[in-house]
């Protein structure tokens, strides 16, 4: 029987292949797991398997996001928002547990969209740096469900009006 390390290496190669072949907007984590197990000749039931595949997907997705974000920022400066729609569609899906930073509000504050157990959350939150990573702090911030985010959007005119009345 192959050692776990060798199996992991085979899974790593398989997952990478699968992710570059598949349409990331359509493929699910489960599909990737199944295919990767077949290609790498590994049992799906191995205790480390599920978590390991998840980790690989996350690595892949965030590497891709970094790339597309960098490209986008440059383009946005030149062209504004006109092309936003077409660029968005080429971006990868947000995997479970993933947190994509949309914009920076201030040095520490970010708005991000999070996939929390398959549901989207819009998070307005302070972040802190640790080991070169930007991590959400639990102290200052709020994560809105989609219903709450939609409600907030609907109230934008009322909020603007309130701001004017105080200025």
């Amino acid at each position, binding site marked *: 029987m192959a050692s776990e390390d060798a199996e992991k290496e085979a899974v790593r190669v398989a997952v990478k292949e699968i992710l570059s072949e598949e349409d990331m907007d359509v493929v699910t984590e489960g599909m990737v797991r199944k295919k990767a197990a077949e290609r790498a000749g590994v049992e799906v039931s191995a205790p480390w398997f599920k978590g390991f595949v998840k980790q690989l997907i996350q690595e892949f997705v965030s590497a891709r996001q970094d790339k597309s974000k960098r490209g986008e920022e440059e383009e946005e400066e030149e062209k504004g*928002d006109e092309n936003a729609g077409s660029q968005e569609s080429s971006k990868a899906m*947000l995997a479970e547990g993933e947190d994509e930073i949309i914009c920076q*509000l*201030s040095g520490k504050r970010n708005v991000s969209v999070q996939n929390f157990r398959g549901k989207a959350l819009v998070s*307005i939150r302070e972040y802190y740096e640790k080991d070169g990573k930007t991590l959400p702090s639990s102290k200052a911030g709020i994560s809105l469900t*989609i219903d709450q985010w939609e409600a907030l959007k609907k109230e934008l005119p009322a*909020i603007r009006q309130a*701001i004017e009345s105080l200025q």
Partner: protein
Amino acid sequence: MASKRKRGSKADEKEDEESVAVCEISKNRKVSVRKWRGQVLVDIREYWYKGGECLPGKKGISLTMDQWNVLQEHVKQIDSAVQRVN
């Protein structure tokens, strides 16, 4: 309702605080706009009820006008990221 605890612990700070309750975005979450030390803030916060009184909770964030404007400018981008979760 002006927040009574935590923020503006000094009495004189409370004096110049005006607040406009704008809307509820869920049963216990509200958006309010307030003026604090001459600065207008948008507060998105959870509230809880005690003895008929509505008190601001810990969960929430107060955005300055600069921060609020950046958020407003990114509504589209937020929506498209939300789409990619489903």
